[in-house]
């Protein structure tokens, strides 16, 4: 009996080997794709990849999760140094400058399409997104994929509990928000009036674009490596000072670095939160109150505000490695052609709440009445495309941006602790940030 089982499995194994051997000639070209999505987003992404793999037989994309965005970036860099970089890597927006300057390590997507002859129209992307990932000549360097933008989430029940009518209470300017937040806290409707997640992204990078003031010289770094930070301008200082004052009166609560403040809104802790539009899925799942999505608040005294917001999220970069064949690049290009289709872009937007990144999606859904039924979903796109981007609101391209973000976190935290004034903190952030930028410049010149 046992012997028979043994024989059977032996035969099965031999059969498997034979089967493998016969198909080996028609093996699909494999592409390694490293990404930073877990949970629902990871499943969705890998589902799309599976669809691509099933749609044809010539190519096979193998997605693998490599940790958070910074971890994925470090993993890709280490792999490149070891000579086996993945074909495709998902990179967060602040890694853009580092990747762009990585000459021999990456293959710009416009070059990819030229070399492989795969025809993908790069003019389909909306300017606020295309501008972020293009070089000075307007040629696309990486493939836009998941983009979000910060908006303000408002807890309508908390406003009502504070005696404010959401329909008539203005929440456009910071002065409006401050008044409402004070009322909410004073009435005990919520312990925290207003807060924000991703402090550097929402309160400096997007704040600057939204008010049409520069974050850094040379068009926020798009014009060259000699760029210097300008976040100690009177408007930036006034904004930080206002936050410090609001903290003292109790209407503003600092929520911590990166996404640490995200739960504060859906838990009902903060009545208003400036955070990523990508928070939508979580709010839908967790919140037990009526909410609405608004534009980010602005300072009425700033002339250029409101301009347009800028994106965050990630794009897909093609990496080079020794022994990489044209066929492999073609596989990547075909995969890009697949995910950039109108249908896929629309599904991605609907499934995840990320922005509709190409023309046609928003218009189509609007015509179908989708945004009337799902109010929160149109606001990010409308805010992003509110005005044609200026040189202050096209995006930013600063080297070692993750380090600059950390510096900004540190300095504003020192200001919130009362160890530094708003001016001192931002002067110091500029000074330290410029050292980082000079080091980056020195590396590449």
């Amino acid at each position: 009996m046992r012997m028979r089982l043994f024989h059977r499995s032996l035969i099965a194994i031999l059969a498997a080997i034979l089967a493998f051997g016969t198909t080996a000639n028609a093996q699909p070209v494999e592409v390694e794709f490293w990404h930073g999505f877990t949970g629902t987003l990871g499943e969705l992404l890998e589902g799309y990849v599976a669809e691509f793999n099933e749609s044809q037989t010539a190519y096979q994309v193998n997605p693998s999760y490599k940790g958070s965005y910074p971890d994925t970036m470090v993993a890709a860099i280490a792999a490149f140094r070891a000579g086996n970089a993945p074909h495709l890597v998902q990179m967060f927006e602040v890694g853009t400058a580092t990747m762009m300057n990585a000459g021999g390590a990456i293959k710009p997507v416009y070059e990819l399409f030229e070399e492989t002859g795969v025809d993908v129209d790069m003019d389909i992307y909306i300017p606020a997104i295309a501008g972020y990932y293009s070089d000075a000549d307007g040629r696309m360097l990486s493939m836009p994929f998941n983009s979000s933008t910060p908006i303000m989430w408002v807890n309508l029940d908390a406003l009502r509990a504070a005696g404010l009518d959401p329909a008539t209470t203005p929440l456009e300017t910071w002065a409006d928000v401050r008044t409402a937040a004070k009322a909410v806290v004073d009435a005990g409707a919520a312990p925290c009036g207003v807060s924000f997640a991703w402090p550097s992204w929402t309160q400096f990078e997007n704040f600057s674009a939204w008010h049409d003031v520069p974050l850094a010289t040379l068009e926020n770094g798009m014009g060259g490596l000699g760029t210097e930070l300008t976040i100690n301008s009177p408007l930036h200082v006034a904004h930080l000072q206002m936050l410090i004052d609001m903290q003292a009166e109790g209407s503003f609560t600092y929520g911590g670095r990166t996404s640490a403040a995200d739960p504060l809104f859906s838990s009902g802790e903060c009545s208003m939160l400036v955070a990523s539009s990508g928070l939508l899925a979580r709010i839908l799942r967790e919140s037990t109150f009526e909410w609405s999505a608004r534009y980010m608040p602005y300072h009425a005294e700033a002339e250029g505000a409101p301009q347009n917001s800028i994106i965050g999220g990630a794009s897909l970069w093609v990496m080079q490695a020794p022994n990489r064949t044209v066929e492999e690049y073609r596989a990547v290009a075909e995969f890009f052609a697949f995910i950039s289709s109108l249908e896929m872009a629309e599904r991605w937007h609907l499934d995840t709440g990320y922005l509709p990144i190409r023309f046609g999606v928003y218009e189509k859904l609007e015509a179908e009445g989708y945004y009337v039924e799902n109010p929160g979903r149109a606001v990010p796109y409308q805010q992003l495309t509110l005005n044609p981007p200026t040189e202050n609101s096209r995006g930013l391209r600063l080297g070692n941006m993750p380090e600059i973000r950390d510096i900004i976190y540190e300095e504003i935290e020192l200001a919130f602790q009362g160890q530094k004034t708003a001016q001192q903190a931002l002067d110091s952030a500029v000074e330290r940030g410029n050292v980082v930028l000079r080091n980056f410049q020195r590396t590449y010149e």
Partner: protein
Amino acid sequence: MRRRTIFRNKLLPYLLLTPQLAITIIFFFYPAAQALYQSMLFEDPFGLRTQFVWFENFQTVLSSPLYLEAARVTLVFSVAVTLGAMAPALLLAVMADQVLRGATGYRTLIVWPYAIAPAVAAVLMLFIFHPTIGQIGQGLRALGVPWDYRIHGGQALFLVIFVSAWKQVSYNFLFFLAGLQSIPKTIVEAAAIDGASPTRRFWRVIFPLLSPTTFFLLVVNIIYAFFDTFGVIHAQTQGGPGRATTTLMYRLYRDGWVNLDLGGSSAQSVLLMAAVIGLTVIQFRYIERRVHY
């Protein structure tokens, strides 16, 4: 004439040492040498452009006031974690040593936290001390304490010290308990017959006899505070608020892994390596003299 055992085979001892030597060379000397080499390079993350700059990275690191600030934080942190992990462990060990009934139960419970990974312990404590969702955090705020470690540097530092020390108490407890149990009962009883009070017996007899264990734990705990507390800091404060919990180790991680400054972070790791070697040498030369074996 003395009788000596002579191994005629000259090769055998080397052969027997080979596995250990291979491990040491591959996993310790080679990376250390590479760190030393990398610490003198100035390059982009991808290694496409490399300049050899001799000691410039060290100069940059050492002249940075932020590095000195991190060194100060590390000093406070390490001393506090070492004390905070050893003192309660000794107290618990002395108590547990005297327990007669249910001793195994106590011991198991006290050793338990050691099985928790640093990052998990950190997240656990985060849920307890979080100012809005944590039980103790909420309690403190209800009592009027402005508890919010996300803003107050001192509180953040206290929190990471507390969690790091708490995790290590179990480990120290085990060693202290074993140390206590290896002290002959007769000596302690003799002291008791001579009329020494329990306190006096502890400090004059037990504590000195425990000194080899204490010394060993001192070295281990300092190294723990330097190198193994990364997970706690990373999960709880990420070095903030401001730079209140940025230790040398955390700074090194950030410069290397987030900021991708490989030369600068290698220089920091070389400095850290030198510091720990120096510290261990000092401990063995000066403190060990007072240890009774």
